[in-house]
């Protein structure tokens, strides 16, 4: 080696400023990552702190009373909790077969690939439509369209408590249907992804021993993808419980408890959207208590979703 090349590539140590930048950058990104934890904890802390007054005043009675009277200062969230759970579970019952069915249809080779991609893209674009636009559509287009059908159901099955009031516009049933529209993309796209990840060996082995297409799907493909599908369904449940705008616009916002799915009702989130702006005093505290219940419910569902995906997916890896 001659002198020229050694001077060209001389050895040097990092300067102090370079080291400082390196350490500083690490600390900054650690701080930014911690923001997630900070925000999450402060949401819980703030909502809990704001609701302590109501918690100490009503305790668990709050969950089972449907009184909501700002004049007498008496609050209970039973109608809203029931509405939240009922609408989200009912919409899930409708959306699971539709979503998983669609996911199967677009992962099997029934129709040409570009058509399948188009259907997949369309379902995912449905998720991009803001909930308030779906609410607008539900109020002006969907609800007037389905009302005659609901009326027919009421006339025939009116003796059953679930159908016992006349559909007069806003109510639980249209809210359930719009929730189906909102959670379909979640269930479909997550199911599609997990169905796609099933090794093709499993499918070929099933075909090889003479299983038909749908025997293969039901007994091999779906069991292999069940972790992802369950995770998607639970995520959709969490989304349905927290969904606010479309539901608020179409559910009718009434705190009177009714078994009928045609009657106006309430969910926790629609109650918050409706009353939080004008509430004061102990009503704020009661609304915060309801918000806390909603948070705990969605948290449980989401944690359970993450746990079940881990638990079930170990089986096939």
């Amino acid at each position: 080696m001659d002198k020229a090349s050694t001077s060209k590539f001389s050895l040097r140590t990092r300067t102090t400023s370079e080291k400082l930048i390196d350490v500083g950058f690490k600390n900054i990104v650690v701080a930014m990552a911690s923001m997630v934890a900070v925000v999450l904890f402060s949401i819980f802390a703030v909502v809990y702190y704001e609701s302590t007054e109501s918690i100490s005043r009503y305790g668990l009675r709050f969950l089972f009373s449907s009184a909501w009277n700002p004049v007498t200062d008496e609050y209970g969230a039973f109608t809203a909790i029931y509405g939240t759970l009922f609408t989200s579970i009912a919409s899930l019952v409708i959306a699971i077969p539709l979503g998983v069915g669609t996911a199967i249809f677009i992962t099997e080779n029934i129709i040409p690939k570009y058509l399948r991609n188009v259907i997949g893209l369309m379902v995912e674009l449905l998720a991009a439509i803001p909930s308030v636009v779906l609410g607008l559509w539900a109020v002006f287009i969907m609800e007037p369209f389905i009302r005659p059908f609901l009326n027919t159901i009421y006339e025939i099955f009116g003796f059953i408590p679930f159908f016992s009031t006349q559909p007069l516009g806003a109510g639980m049933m249209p809210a359930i249907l719009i929730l189906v529209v909102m959670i379909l993309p979640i269930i479909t796209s997550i199911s599609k992804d997990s169905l796609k990840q099933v090794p093709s060996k499993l499918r070929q082995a099933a075909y090889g021993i003479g299983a038909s297409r749908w025997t293969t799907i039901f007994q091999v493909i779906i069991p292999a993808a069940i972790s992802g599908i369950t995770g998607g369904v639970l995520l959709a449940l969490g989304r349905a419980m927290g969904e606010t705008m479309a539901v608020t616009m179409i559910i009718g916002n009434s705190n009177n408890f009714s078994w009928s799915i045609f009657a106006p009702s309430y969910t926790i989130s629609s109650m918050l959207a409706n009353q939080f702006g004008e509430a004061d005093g102990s009503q704020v505290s009661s609304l915060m208590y309801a918000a806390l219940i909603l948070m705990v419910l969605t948290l449980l569902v989401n944690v359970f979703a993450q746990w079940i995906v881990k638990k079930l997916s170990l089986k096939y890896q």
Partner: protein
Amino acid sequence: MNYTSQKHLTYNPSLTRNIGNKALTIISALFSIISVLPLILVIIYVLIKGGSYINIETLILEPEPPGDDLLTAGGIGPAITGTFIMTVIASIISIPVGVGGGIYLAEYSKSGRFAKFIRFGSNVLAGVPSIIAGVFIYAIIVSTKILFGSMFSGIAGGISLSILMLPTIIKTTDEALKLVPNDMRRAAFGIGASKFTMITNITLPAAFTSISTGVLLALARAAGETAPLIFTALFSRYYITSFDDLFYEMGSLSVLIYNFALEPYEAQNQLAWAASFILVVVLLSLNILSRWIGTLGAFSKHKV
């Protein structure tokens, strides 16, 4: 080979299993059609009904106060600028924090206990209902008047939107950086780069397209959100004219749709449809744009 064995080897459509297969295939096709139908119907109605109310006046005028049965309800100009401003505020907060958090997860602590906790936390945060973000910001910013004594403000609205964007950006940054091959990191270290230089000059540029896909999707979601805004930014019928106006109520397209859809007057409802048209067109374009950018990615899952 005799006749009977050949008969068993040919496709027999009247067999129970073949009929069942056909039936299930048809049912699944039907389900797909039902699933796609809402999108088509919503888009048709929003484009036709909303599009028919779009003209220059609707786009730039301020909305008239509801109540009188006016012939026109004004326009949605302030709502468009309001949505834009609040989305920008939300991005200014959530993009640096989210990308920084994602860098920490992917580059500094791949499987540490803290990183696992943060990943779990951002999944939980992603599942927090959007209205709770509004309630939270109301409690810490609006009701305490912590922002220079202002209550409902565009800034509070932007902050509550940033809470919703944060988990998506962290997750996509984390995943995008994980797809960058480790060879590139080792090569950078090998020629003497510090970790900071390696991240800013090698891995971040390599993951840039995937990260921007996630950022655009988060942005599109935030721009359409209503629930966090109805008691943080509230609503305003006026254009903002100065910097100070950021500390006052601010209108947005989504809250305009919510407020005016529930008005009993036809003119207001038409304005809600016009606002939906703008919102849906912008959000769908953002979504399609982000998908297109995603296909350009150098390290998308399909190419590595």
